[in-house]
Each structure stands twice: as structure tokens, then as C-alpha cells.
């Protein structure tokens, strides 16, 4: 039946055992992409979605119209945030491997996407991330202990034990709750921005999804509503080449860039080197100005690479060459910013090593403190009866009853609430 088939089934350039091959990526030279005024009409931004905005070259020099001309102290802060994000990720992954948290997702290799964008936005801007922008929490000064406590579902967990690890939220930090359901936050961010516009407030919203998730309906809802109401929102699409085991072609990236979806809706689409801190900063600043001035929304495609496994439940060696990251033409965002600072004479290997140590200490101390608030296998524990709260504002009768039923079972010792070792996750 299959021989005459003409169904095109996309397949990645390389599978395990084959040579990595990124020749499919269209790369512009650093500094080459043009930079229109923020008031540009959407219809006149088509080129932006085909080029690749790059500022930092291999020579560590920042060039071109998108150079945000940040001062060295700011760059150093960016480096620190990215490094802290990476060290935090590494540590949490090890902790998961030790069976002390049930699950973790790293953002390794994509730190600039969150950190640079976060720095280019204002604290009052509302962020609607996916699960791979922990860098936003770091930028906004979140205490790592809070993040760790969430992953531990312990007594200090802001989610009160109700969410899987990494599904953080931060009301006072203006970071929305991360959902396990892909893409749902995207149109919500647009709704938030519409409300800001209705109220005449100046804050804007920003959201992030993966290129894989852009196939979900909510991508379309977000783009349509953002375009129709000219909502003050930045829609970031993180094209890290992979969605679990499927490469970006399965999401529709074979014939066009994801940024090009933007112009299709009448929204400027910008394609940016997601591993270039300066470039991400610059395009975010551009889009934020645009939104804040009421000119409208922007779609930003961040071209990056998911260096780590999808999550701790995943083994990427089953579906892609082990050395793929090494072949990634846009490098490592941390190494690149570091190289830039060194080239500027504002950083050194020694300072870097010192910073790394300092941050390691911070991560370690945070973990110690977090553990003291309880772990899945011991220490102080959340009261299970809290699980009946917050379903509604006021607890309705049937939940009061269920809580009392549960209370009786607990008091009678009928339910064994001793810690359960983590089951092998499928």
C-alpha cells in the first residue's frame, strides 16, 4: 500500500549515529539585519522575519543597528543571571536524579532567551512563561529557595504542593503560573494585555512558547486576538529545534521560519539569534517600546537549541545525535556573553570562576534552606487537608464533607501518609 504514497513525513537532518547537520538554518551575518523604527507598519516588516537579528559576532564584537549599547555592569548582571540559571538547573537535575524531587526541566543553552528578555522589560510588565524560562524568575530576583520549595512540594511551596516541580508562579513578581498544558498561557497573555489597554495602563504582557507548541490552537487564538485588538503584548516563540523527540520541521518549520507567521496575521515577526544576549535584549526592547506606545504586538522567534534532555523523564540519545549541541552554529549564550565582556576588558576567566563559585555557594545554601522546609521523603510536611482549599473561594459543602472524611481517615491512621519513594516515572 505504501510504495506510491506521496505523504511527506518530515524527518530531521540527523538521527543518532549520524553527523549533526544544521545546514537547514538560514543565518544572517552579525549586524546585517536592518532595524526599522518601532512605529513601522506590520506590512513593512516582512524582511525581519526572514533575516536573523544578530549582534555578537564570533569575534566577540557587538555590531550593527540592533546593538543595544548596554553598559558593562548591565552585561555583567546578565551574565550572572544566565550563569545562576544554569547552575540552578544543573543542581536541580542532580537532585532529581537522586530521587529527591519527582521531575525537572532544564533550560540549558537557552538562558539568554529568558534572561535578556526579562532584563529588557519593566518590573510591572506581566510575564506568561512556559516551563523553560526559569531565567525570568532569576532576573526578577526570585529567591531560589522559593523555586526549590516548589519543586519539593514542601511547607514553603507557593503552590501548596498542588503542582509538579517547575510549575512556579509569582504574584508579586508579576510572573504568571506555569501550566502543564502547552500554549494555554499565550492567549491569556493577550487577554491580560487587552485589559491593560482597556484600563489605559502602561504595562505590557509577554509570553513564551516552544516552536512545537505553536501547533496548538492557542497559538492561533493569541495571534488573532493580538492582531485584531492591537494588544500590547510580546509573543515569544522559542525555536529550540526540538519538541521532545520531534524536530522543528514537524511543527511546520521546514518551509518558512516561525517568525514569518507574524506577517501572516499582520503582526511584525522578528527572527533573532536566541543565543545572543545582546540581540535578544535589543529585539525585546524594540517590541516592548512598540507595545507600550500602542503600536501593537510583536512575534519574536528565538532561534536556539535545547541542549539538555526535554525533561528528566526523557532520553534524547534515542532520537538525535549525542553531539548535536556541539555542532550548533549559534554557540552557547553564556560563553558568548562572557567572551564579549572579556573582549571589552570588563571580565576575565578568574572573575568568571569566582562568580561561578559564589553562585554555587548560593545554590547550595538555598538547597539546604529549602530542604529544611521539608522534602518528599521527610521533614516538615504540608497538611494534606489543605488540598481541599482554593478549589473555590469559599469551600462548598461537599468539599467540607470530603475534608472531614479525610480528616477522620487520617486521625484513624487508616491512610498511610508516610513518604513514598518516587515511582519510576514512565
Amino acid at each position, binding site marked *: 500500500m505504501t510504495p506510491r504514497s506521496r505523504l511527506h513525513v518530515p524527518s530531521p537532518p540527523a538521527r543518532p549515529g549520524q553527523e549533526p547537520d544544521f545546514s537547514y538554518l538560514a543565518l544572517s551575518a552579525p549586524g546585517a539585519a536592518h532595524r526599522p523604527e518601532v512605529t513601522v507598519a506590520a506590512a513593512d516588516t516582512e524582511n525581519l522575519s526572514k533575516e536573523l537579528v544578530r549582534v555578537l559576532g564570533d569575534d566577540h564584537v557587538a555590531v550593527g543597528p540592533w546593538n543595544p549599547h548596554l553598559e558593562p555592569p548591565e552585561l555583567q548582571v546578565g551574565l550572572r543571571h544566565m550563569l545562576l540559571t544554569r547552575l540552578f538547573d544543573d543542581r536541580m537535575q542532580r537532585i532529581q536524579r537522586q530521587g529527591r524531587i519527582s521531575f525537572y526541566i532544564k533550560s540549558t543553552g537557552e538562558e539568554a532567551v529568558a534572561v535578556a528578555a526579562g532584563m529588557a522589560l519593566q518590573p510591572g510588565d506581566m510575564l506568561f512563561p512556559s516551563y523553560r524560562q526559569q531565567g525570568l524568575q532569576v532576573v526578577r530576583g526570585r529567591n531560589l529557595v522559593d523555586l526549590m520549595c516548589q519543586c519539593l512540594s514542601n511547607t514553603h511551596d507557593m503552590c501548596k504542593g*498542588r503542582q509538579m516541580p517547575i510549575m512556579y508562579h509569582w*504574584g508579586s513578581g508579576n510572573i*504568571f503560573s506555569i501550566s502543564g498544558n502547552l500554549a494555554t498561557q499565550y*492567549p491569556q497573555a*493577550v*487577554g491580560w494585555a487587552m*485589559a491593560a489597554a482597556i484600563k489605559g495602563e502602561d504595562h505590557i504582557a509577554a509570553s513564551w512558547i516552544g516552536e512545537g507548541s505553536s501547533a496548538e490552537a492557542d497559538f492561533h*487564538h493569541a495571534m488573532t486576538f493580538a492582531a485584531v485588538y492591537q494588544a500590547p503584548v510580546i509573543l515569544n516563540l522559542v525555536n529550540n529545534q526540538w519538541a521532545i523527540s520531534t524536530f522543528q520541521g514537524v511543527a511546520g518549520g521546514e518551509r518558512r521560519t516561525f517568525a514569518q507567521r507574524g506577517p501572516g496575521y499582520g503582526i511584525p515577526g522578528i527572527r533573532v539569534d536566541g543565543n545572543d544576549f545582546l540581540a535578544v535584549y535589543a529585539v525585546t526592547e524594540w517590541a516592548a517600546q512598540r507595545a507600550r506606545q500602542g503600536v501593537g504586538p510583536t512575534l519574536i522567534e528565538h532561534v536556539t537549541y535545547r541542549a539538555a534532555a526535554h525533561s528528566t523523564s526523557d532520553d534524547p540519545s534515542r532520537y538525535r545525535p549525542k553531539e548535536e549541541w556541539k555542532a550548533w552554529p549559534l554557540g552557547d549564550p553564556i560563553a558568548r556573553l562572557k567572551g564579549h565582556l572579556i573582549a571589552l576588558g570588563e571580565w576575565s576567566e578568574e572573575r568568571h570562576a569566582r562568580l561561578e563559585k559564589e553562585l554555587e555557594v548560593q545554590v547550595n545554601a538555598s538547597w539546604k534552606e529549602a530542604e529544611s522546609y521539608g522534602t518528599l521523603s521527610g521533614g516538615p510536611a504540608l497538611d494534606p487537608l489543605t488540598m481541599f*482549599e482554593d478549589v473555590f473561594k469559599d469551600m462548598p459543602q461537599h468539599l467540607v464533607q470530603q475534608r472531614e472524611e479525610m480528616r477522620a481517615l487520617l486521625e484513624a491512621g487508616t491512610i498511610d501518609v508516610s513518604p513514598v519513594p518516587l515511582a519510576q516515572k514512565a
Partner: protein
Amino acid sequence: MARMNMVQALNSAMDVMLARDPRVVILGEDVGYFGGVFRATEGLQRKHGEHRVFDTPISEGGIIAAAIGMGVNGLKPVAEIQFADYIYPGFDQVVSELARLRYRTAGEFTAPVTIRTPCGGGIRGGQTHSQSPEAIFTHVSGIKVVMPSNPYDAKGLLISAIEGEDPVVFFEPKRIYNGPFDGDPHKPAVPWSTHPQGEVPEGHFTVPLSKAAIVRPGTVATILTYGTMVHVSEAAVRLAGIDAEIIDVRTMAPLDIDTVCTSVCRTGRCVVVHEATLFGGYGAELVARVQEHCFWNLEAPIQRVGGWDTPYPHAFEWEYFPGPARVAAALTKVMEAS
């Protein structure tokens, strides 16, 4: 007191809330300039401005998602889904997001969104303009589910829904928008102006959620129902000549189980009536709770009457609709059993 039909009462509820609370906004397909295909939002855009009342793209998922985001940003959105049959494209946002936001953030983020949507058959709408999908929402923890049966309740319940802090799916039985309907399509239509519950205050008032109403006191059996079927049940009681108590559940979730069980424990016999398909319908939940709480008082198996377990067929609307004859038959059956 003014006389209003149900559409006018709903319109008045929104008008009152738009005026009282600057956070209230109305959005949905055709709700702006046009005033809604059922006219529920007529005049509201002109009066309150196009930033408070506006049309949306035809995208139920987008409407609900945007409403959630607006709710998170401090507004109180009232979203119209043109027909309950078209709520499914927005189902994920309701179940995975709207219902759980307060829970998953331990109360730090909430989205007080009210979703209004006309439901039910009886207007020759066929399978895609006649559904009653309330059971699909009552199973979702974190959502309140409401259905009024008259203009007074419609206004009072809708104001309660909008004023509340929880998400509400507010079903409007469109067959009784203009007048009560007792299930006999051969009779001339009766307008609400002739009905006591068509008297509705112009201003602000509320009818509490999660509080059932005894719409007809009775002694020998209890009918549990809501929406259009309240009126059908009244006709059935007359038809069967049986002195049954009729309870309008009004809020399906969270349920006012006390009012329900107090009645059934007293009468000892129970019929559950809804227009939705029977299998897995909301009536099953009522039966399950009643038999548990009133088991020792029950004199006969609880009977359920609902739509047949098929899509709503255009040509057989009245054969499909669980009219007074079927309800009366069930009533007779519970009375005979012993």
C-alpha cells in the same frame, strides 16, 4: 417593578453591573454593535462604550482564554458563547485553566470569569443549536454551573455570578427566553409578562448561587429539575394529578444538597428531570446523592427523565424533548411502585 422577559432580565443584569463595577466587560461573537444574536447585550455597547462591550473573532477558545487573561488583570469579564453547542472549542481553557487557576496558585491568581451561553432545544435548531452540556462542566472541580428557569432568577443569579470571585458557566435555556414553556408546542406561546416571575426589579439585586428553590411545594413525591424542565414538570404534575414537590436546582454545582434531600426524605419518592441526554447526565449525580442520603426513606426507585441518548434530531424535536407526558409517566411510575 418592571416586567421583563428572560433576555431583558439578563440584559438588565449586565447593564446594572457595567454601571456599578468598572471592572465588568462584556465580550463575545456579535455582542457589540449588534447586541447579540439573541439580543441579550442590545444597547450595552452604545451605553457603556466599545471598550466595555465588544465583538470578538469567532473563536470560542480565544474568547475564554482572553477572558481569563483579562480576569487575571483585574477585570470581571462576562463572555458570551453564542450557543452552548459551540463551547467545546473553548473547553480546554475552561477545564485546564479557568477551573484550576486558583487551586494551582494557592489563591495567588484567580480569574473571575462568567461564561453565558444559551442552551437547550425547542427552537428547531437541530443537533448543533439545542444541546444541554451542563454535565460536562459539573464534573469539573472549580467551576460553578448555573441555569435559571425564569427572568427574576436569571437576573439575580447572573448578578451573583458576576459579583462572585469564582468562574461560572451560566446556561440560559433559550426556549424560555420569551416565555415559560410547559412542553406542549401545540399551545400558543405564553409571554413572561403574564407570569409572576416576569416581574423583575430594574436595579441591583441578587439571587444566591448554590441555593435551590422549591417552586411548587408538594407532599407525595419530589421532582428535581432545572431550566425549561421546571415548567415542563409543573405541567406534568398537573397532567398526572399528583401532588409532587418541584425543586429548581438552579445551581448544579456546587449543589444545594440539603434542600434536595430534605424534600426527598420527606416525600419518599423522586423523579429527576433534565433535557440533556440521559446517559452520564447530571441527573445521575442527583440520583446517586439522593439514594445515598434518603435510602431509608425511599419508597420506590428514583426515576430519571432526560433526552434520549442520541443527538438532538431536527425533525423529531418534540418526540425527542422530554415533555410533560414522559415526566408524568415517570411520576406515575414512582407513585405506583411499592
